[in-house]
């Protein structure tokens, strides 16, 4: 290794040491108290008759919360979680715009253009659960669908769908659900009455 390449590395190490020490000091002494994070995000709720209600992130967070464990796996079998998830029951959000009944579905939309349709039964927790190792279907406790804003005690990262993501949770952390339901970056939930496409 040449002398010239060693010097920048040592400088880099020194900078890293100082940074780690700084972070450790701030975390340990916590001189400023817990920072209040502001999240600027609106969630639009739409009733089956088209009426809209917009909730800010703070208004949503002020609603009664639900906590549980949930994890999912991707199309190719990559396991995520389980995590401790905290959020608001999707059913409670539907109730803010007239509720949901068995003839309704909901369309959950995200800021990246993703949309997922979910049935009334799913809003009430009717999902299959899977063993995290074998992916065989596994029995489960009562499941709840929430709009999650905290994962493992912290607000969601952007990668995790900050600030709002669908999660399917229960009191156990022994099983997973399918990842396509865990919509990230949720900004709209619409209660719908699907048209019957049967041509019979």
């Amino acid at each position, binding site marked *: 290794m040449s002398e010239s390449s060693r010097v920048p590395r040592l400088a880099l190490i020194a900078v890293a040491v100082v940074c*780690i020490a700084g972070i450790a000091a701030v975390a340990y002494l916590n001189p400023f108290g817990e920072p209040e994070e502001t999240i600027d995000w609106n969630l639009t709720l739409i009733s089956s008759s088209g009426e809209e209600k917009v909730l800010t992130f703070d208004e949503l967070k002020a609603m009664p919360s639900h906590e549980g464990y949930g994890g999912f796996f991707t199309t190719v079998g990559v396991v995520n979680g389980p995590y401790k998830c905290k959020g608001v029951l999707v059913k409670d959000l539907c109730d803010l715009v007239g509720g949901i009944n068995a003839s309704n579905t909901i369309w959950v939309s995200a800021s990246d*253009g993703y*949309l997922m349709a979910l049935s009334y039964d799913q809003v009430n927790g009717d999902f299959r659960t899977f063993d995290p190792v074998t992916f065989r279907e596994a029995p489960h406790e009562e499941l709840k669908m929430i709009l999650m804003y905290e994962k493992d005690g912290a607000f969601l990262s952007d990668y995790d769908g900050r600030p709002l993501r669908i999660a399917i949770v229960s009191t156990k952390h022994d099983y997973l659900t*399918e990842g396509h339901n865990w919509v990230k970056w949720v900004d709209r939930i619409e209660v719908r009455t699907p048209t019957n496409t049967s*041509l019979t």
Partner: protein
Amino acid sequence: MELDQMIKTKHIITLTLMAAVVLSTAGLFHEPEKAQLKVIYAGSLIIPFEEMEKAFEDEHPNADVLLEGHGSIQAIRRITEIHEEYDVIAVADDSLVPDMMYPDYADWCVRFAQNQMVIAYTNASLYADKINDLNWYEILARPDVKFGFSNPFFDACGYRTLMVVPLAEHYYENRTIFEDLIACNFDPRIPIIEEDGVYTVFVPEVFEPQGDKIAVRGGSVQLLALLEYGGIDYVFAYKSVAQQHGLRYVELPAEIDLRAREYGDSYGKVTVNLGFQRFSSVGIERQGKPIFYGITVPKNAPNPELGVEFVNFVLSEEGQNVLRSVNQPSIPPEADELDKIPEELRAVVYKEIET
């Protein structure tokens, strides 16, 4: 300074010294950094691309291939809508690249592999020794037989299943196959319209069969697990996936299994109409066509030279041998825009896609 504050300060100093020791040690034993190559690919290429990674890294010891699998549409969206950066993308439907990535994120695509639909099963499947390419639809319709396929909203293999079945009606000259296998197991029934030999299947937004005759799951991961422990007897799958998992399978006629270029026109007579638009950038109609895999280097690739090198490797005789070794059928590479492919690929890609 108060006593507890002094103790805290001591702890910080100790922590700092420990961090310094760890980082210095890491610096002393530092190895030259490898160039990272980020490859995003379709789920049905998991096994072939894991092998490709090993073979490429053996030849390029300074490269570190990082693989990430998704459904094909999701893979493209990670680049075009979520704005993540990858050096190579390979998808299970080559037409998605021009449709979703041109002109901003790519301007060429090379076909390099193909696939076909089969009906996979195990020795434990009911009627395993009776099923064949002439009676499969009768066996699957028997009341005691259970079968599965992927959800057409989440997996191309799912909407391709809904293409195979109407094509079978036409091929076997039996107008009840779709009704007996698919439609009657949903409430309300899955509608299909046939006009002048052209079929349109309408998929409702909640695609959940009634009873346990049919299992619809998000992807092959769940379905293969279900098949292997006997939850279902048969599953519609890609041939390569069935072979890679050591499953038995019924090979379907080329007229219906979406493998053959020469039947492209007849495959095109089936359209699957999805009940909601899952991606704002992709419409709700899927039209039947032969299954070809496409590969490209995105325009925003962080390491495009290495990306091209990887594509070159995949398309080379050695890469094609890797694909064949894991039962992924390959084809002589052909490009949609021959004049736009990188110079380095011209030795292996010299044919334009026939339209």
